[in-house]
């Protein structure tokens, strides 16, 4: 039987810190993310205190049907005047190649367009990171730039690829009416940190729908 994949979004919370720190120190994660280990729990708690009061970013935890954490991601550098923000994600190193990166990316992009009301999402990938680039392109990200020699990897220059996704680039199959309707009907005016949780069910690799949404000041237990 085909296993149903689900990506649930909730705001990143203090309880997630140890898992995040574990991954950030994992050599299957940090070379692609620009973290420089060792990352400590204390520093990450201090980081969380800072970002909780920062309206220019939203940090999310993505869990699956059994509430295992499958990824951390979010939107940073939110510029409401232009309507843009920078996307990031890193997937559970024990769950690579299962499609959770793509499902989580789709969910976060939906969240950014529908809830944060952004016009554009962008990200910068290492040129040699072909799997990630293929995934972004499959969702509709367009290569807008190839910045030469913008990164050093073990003393060797690497190019960086700049990707942009306008609301209108988002692939047709990813913009389900049900999603829009639900967001429009039940959510208050889009302000970060008001919506604490909503659930997206993967129908197939290109389709999903909201199952539930929780609104409130406290993170749902």
């Amino acid at each position, binding site marked *: 039987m085909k296993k149903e994949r689900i990506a649930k979004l909730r705001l990143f919370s203090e309880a997630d810190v140890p898992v995040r720190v574990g991954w950030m120190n994992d050599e299957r994660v940090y070379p692609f993310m620009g973290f420089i280990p060792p990352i400590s729990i204390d520093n990450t708690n201090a980081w969380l205190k800072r970002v909780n009061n920062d309206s220019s970013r939203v940090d999310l935890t993505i869990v699956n049907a059994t509430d295992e954490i499958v990824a951390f991601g979010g939107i940073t550098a939110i510029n409401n005047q232009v309507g843009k923000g920078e996307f990031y994600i890193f997937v559970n190193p024990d769950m690579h190649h299962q499609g959770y990166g793509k499902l989580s990316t789709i969910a976060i992009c939906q969240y950014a367009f529908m809830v944060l009301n952004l016009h*554009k999402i962008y990200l910068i990938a290492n040129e040699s990171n072909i799997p990630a680039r293929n995934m972004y392109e499959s969702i509709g990200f*367009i290569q807008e730039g190839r910045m030469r020699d913008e990164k050093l990897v073990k003393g060797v220059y690497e190019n960086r690829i700049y990707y942009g996704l*306008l609301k209108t680039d988002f692939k047709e199959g990813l913009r389900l009416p049900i999603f829009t309707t639900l967001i429009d009907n039940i959510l208050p005016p889009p302000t970060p940190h008001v919506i604490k949780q909503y659930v997206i069910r993967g129908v197939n690799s290109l389709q999903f729908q909201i199952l539930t949404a929780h609104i409130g000041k406290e993170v749902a237990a």
Partner: protein
Amino acid sequence: MIIRLFQFGDIETRVRWMNLPQIYANMGFTPPITIENTIAWYSKNLTSDNRIDVTYCDDNGDILGFGGVTQIDWDLGRGETYTFISPDKHHLGLGTKGNQLLIYISFRLLCLNKLSSHVDGPNIASRRVREKLGFKLEGVIRDEKRLNGELIDRYYYGLLNREYKPPKDITDTQIRITNVEISKLLKRGAH
């Protein structure tokens, strides 16, 4: 034309120009720029390790323009250039000449690997200058900025040290930046 480091005595001219629409419209400054703030900016830059600001002059020492390399990342060897020319001396090719000197010191004295420059899409004159200077267009970033209410594209240009060919007409006498000044900058970069 000669190039030297920006000095305290240049502040008055810089502030006067920066408050003129023909300058600030293309530079992303938001006027009013004040003398006090610019003095504070200047003092801060004296110990900053990630930028160099220069003044372009004619042979009599009269100021023709200002420029610099900012956001220098010494590990990557990369920085971003800016230049603006006296508002009554536009269309004389001074922007190109100034930039040529700035690029020369960036690659030959500071030994940077790459210069980047981000230009507003509608600013065709500036884009043409980048291309004339040998910059390669590396990206057209869509809807990156709001200008007078409209979303506009930004053009990302890059020039690498290894593809740089210095113009033949640059002479040592045009470079009025001493070895002491350069080694101070490099020392700050090396921490």
